[in-house]
């Protein structure tokens, strides 16, 4: 059963990683993806909106799919919402397994599917007060479809 959190607060990636190996000796590797807010085109902040309830459910389903496809010993997905500044983390995906291939592949799978199947929307705020909604990218659909 994966740990899934959608929250405004920052998270501690180190503590979350340590939690996946604490007290057990069957973990051979932990793979991680840390998504960070970039400052493109003079971005001041990114504001993330989500669909409370559906978002958690969608991520839990994606994580269950990963646990069905790969032999994972642990899985953590934390996605922040609200106003996030350039340089701040947005999303953390951790997968632990006895062997590295399962950890690495399931981690890539999780972030690819999360990008296209979990109801989050990004709004970019720029200096001077302009804003724009981020548009979905065909490359993200292609990345999700390869799994």
């Amino acid at each position: 059963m994966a740990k899934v959190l959608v929250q405004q607060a920052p998270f501690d990636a180190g503590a979350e990683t340590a939690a996946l190996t604490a007290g057990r000796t069957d973990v051979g590797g932990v793979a991680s993806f840390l998504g960070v807010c970039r400052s493109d085109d003079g971005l001041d902040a990114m504001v993330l909106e989500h669909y409370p309830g559906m978002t958690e459910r969608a991520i839990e389903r994606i994580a269950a799919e990963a646990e069905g496809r790969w032999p994972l010993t642990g899985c953590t997905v934390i996605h922040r919402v609200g106003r996030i500044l350039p340089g701040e983390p947005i999303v953390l995906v951790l997968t632990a397994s006895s062997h590295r291939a399962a950890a690495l592949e399931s981690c890539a799978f999780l972030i690819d599917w999360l990008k296209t199947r979990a109801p989050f929307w990004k709004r970019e705020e720029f200096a001077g007060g302009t804003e724009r909604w981020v548009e979905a990218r065909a490359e993200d659909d292609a990345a999700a479809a390869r799994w």
Partner: protein
Amino acid sequence: MRVLYFAWVRQKVGIAEEDVAPPAEVRDVATLVAWLAARSPGHAAAFADPKQLRAAVNQDFATPDHPVAANDEVAFFPPVTGG
């Protein structure tokens, strides 16, 4: 029926959610879109190009032919951009 709007769909409609009682001929997501679009200029703007919209019925992604009923929670939003 509870209808929720997210991201620029919410901004164009002007509200985040509303309770509606569509007529019997509104049977699926597509006919609900057509009916909602006639409610206000904001709705019309939000639903002007249904291809730009995605929907969920009771918190599951739904296609235009997905049935809708009186007690459903239906949401409209742009393609998702998380991660």
